[in-house]
């Protein structure tokens, strides 16, 4: 089974520095199966045209392909509205401008220290313009959110922004509780699902989340596309953000009127090939047993975390049942960048640095970690080879 999945990803045939590529940088971006690459090729070699408002066959096919992605996303996440963006970051910026500007006037915004910069900076920018108070929920020493602090800070707030699953720790937050608390206090909830969506099938309606942002490239889809999922009530409260192209109904010199469906928020020629690629990625993931994969990968992460600890490293993560298979670690003396560089010399791709989560690292008292993150095509063999390289490096260089 494992071998079968690996065979679907052409890049895994690649050699890096004379070694088989062991790609463990999946929290940054995932690899693409051949079916995704082929779907985009098929689009560009047979159907490419601009979408909407056109009569000719190619334009019809392109429109159907583009809109099919939206339909698939809505049903995959059980979401009422799906606005296609260029990624999670643009989705959150869209939420801040289109929903936040009109709706958050004078109201506080609750964030957490575990957020990715993409779920912090847009709100800081909003607050700079409109003077909103930003309240940060601390991360406790056990790497979970301080839920009492969250409960206290939600009072009078208009929005709670929380990362579904941390890209540094792999910790999956208790979003059910958070949504319950927020709603009980009249605040809406935006989930940053960039890391959650690749690892489990999130049911937005069941959770009751109001907005949810994610990126295709972290779930076997192409670069350049993501979405903001929104429930109907929130959708109706949103004002247009970027103007131009297909989002209008009429334009006169005096002013413009806008479309009423999701196109209202998709200005300009959309990400057509990307949508078609993403849809293929969803079909691909849909054929796997994602839950089984999740457990398999979590076992790998636990094993790796334990081994690294036994070599004297600090691991930042707990790897509970719902957590993602991310292992952040530090060696007491070997510099992370050097470590990553030496791993690269062995064909292993890991990431180092602040992972765009400086406030979290600040709370942990560090400036960066090494991060090995696993995805569906990674095997226990990858993990063992990675550990073997780690041991050899420590022996020679630490």
């Amino acid at each position, binding site marked *: 089974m494992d071998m079968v999945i690996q065979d679907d990803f052409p890049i895994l045939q690649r050699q890096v520095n004379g070694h088989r590529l062991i790609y463990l940088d999946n929290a940054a971006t995932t690899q693409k199966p051949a079916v995704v690459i082929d779907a985009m090729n098929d689009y560009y070699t047979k159907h490419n045209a601009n979408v909407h*408002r*056109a*009569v*000719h*066959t190619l*334009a*019809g*096919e392109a*429109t*159907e392909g583009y809109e099919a992605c939206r339909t698939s996303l809505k049903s995959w996440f059980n979401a009422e509205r799906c606005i296609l963006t260029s990624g999670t970051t643009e989705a959150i910026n869209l939420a801040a401008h289109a929903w936040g500007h009109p709706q958050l006037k004078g109201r506080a915004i609750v964030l957490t220290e575990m957020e990715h910069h993409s779920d912090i900076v847009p709100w800081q920018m909003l607050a700079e313009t409109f003077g909103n108070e930003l309240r940060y929920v601390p991360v406790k020493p056990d790497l979970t959110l301080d839920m009492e602090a969250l409960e206290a800070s939600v009072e009078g707030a208009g929005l709670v922004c929380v990362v579904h699953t941390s890209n540094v720790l792999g910790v999956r937050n208790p979003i059910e509780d958070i949504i319950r608390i927020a709603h009980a206090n009249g605040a809406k909830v935006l989930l940053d699902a960039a890391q959650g969506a690749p690892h489990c099938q999130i049911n937005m309606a069941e959770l009751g989340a109001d907005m949810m942002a994610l990126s295709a490239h972290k779930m076997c889809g192409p670069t350049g596309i993501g979405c903001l999922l929104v429930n109907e009530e929130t959708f109706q409260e949103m004002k247009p953000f970027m103007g131009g192209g297909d989002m209008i109904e009429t334009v006169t010199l005096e002013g413009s009127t806008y479309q009423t469906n999701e196109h209202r928020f998709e200005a300009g020629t959309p990400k057509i090939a990307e949508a078609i690629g993403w849809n293929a990625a969803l079909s691909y993931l849909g054929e796997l047993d994602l839950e089984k994969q999740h457990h398999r990968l979590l076992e790998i992460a636990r094993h790796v975390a334990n081994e690294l600890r036994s070599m004297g490293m600090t691991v930042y993560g707990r790897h509970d049942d719902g957590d993602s298979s991310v292992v952040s670690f530090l060696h007491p003396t070997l510099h992370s960048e050097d470590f990553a560089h030496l791993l690269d010399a062995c064909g292993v791709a890991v990431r180092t640095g602040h992972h765009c989560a400086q406030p979290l690292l600040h709370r942990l008292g560090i400036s960066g970690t090494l991060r090995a993150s696993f995805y569906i095509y990674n095997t226990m063999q990858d993990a063992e080879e990675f550990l073997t390289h780690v041991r050899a490096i420590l022996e020679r260089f630490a």
Partner: protein
Amino acid sequence: MTYPQQLAELIEDFQSIEDRMERLEYVFDLASEVNELPTEQWNDITRIQGCQSEAHIRVDIDENNVNLFSGADSKLVQGLMGILTIAIDGQPLDIALSLTPEFAVEMGILNSLSPSRSNGFRNMFDKVMNELQEMK
């Protein structure tokens, strides 16, 4: 499914035409089959949403029989209206309501149309059926 005779004949006619352009020519010709809805009566209620051109339709019930009035600035769209007119105008309400868009597939007309036009046809069909449903 069995169709009212006029419609069954029309389906057969269309099926016998091999050439796409001829089929479209036939649709154009059927534009004259509509009971015209005068442009003065075109309004937001009669408008078919999702059509790229202006297309309007109104249904009435006269002694339990369906009456269809329609018009469009596109002759192709009005031709599709003509087909729908042949299919249900003058038919008893329950016969009209039993119709599904399948008949247009059988005719081979939907795949002679670009996706935008065939969506337009579906919107037209749905609008008529929804209004008839409410009159039941």
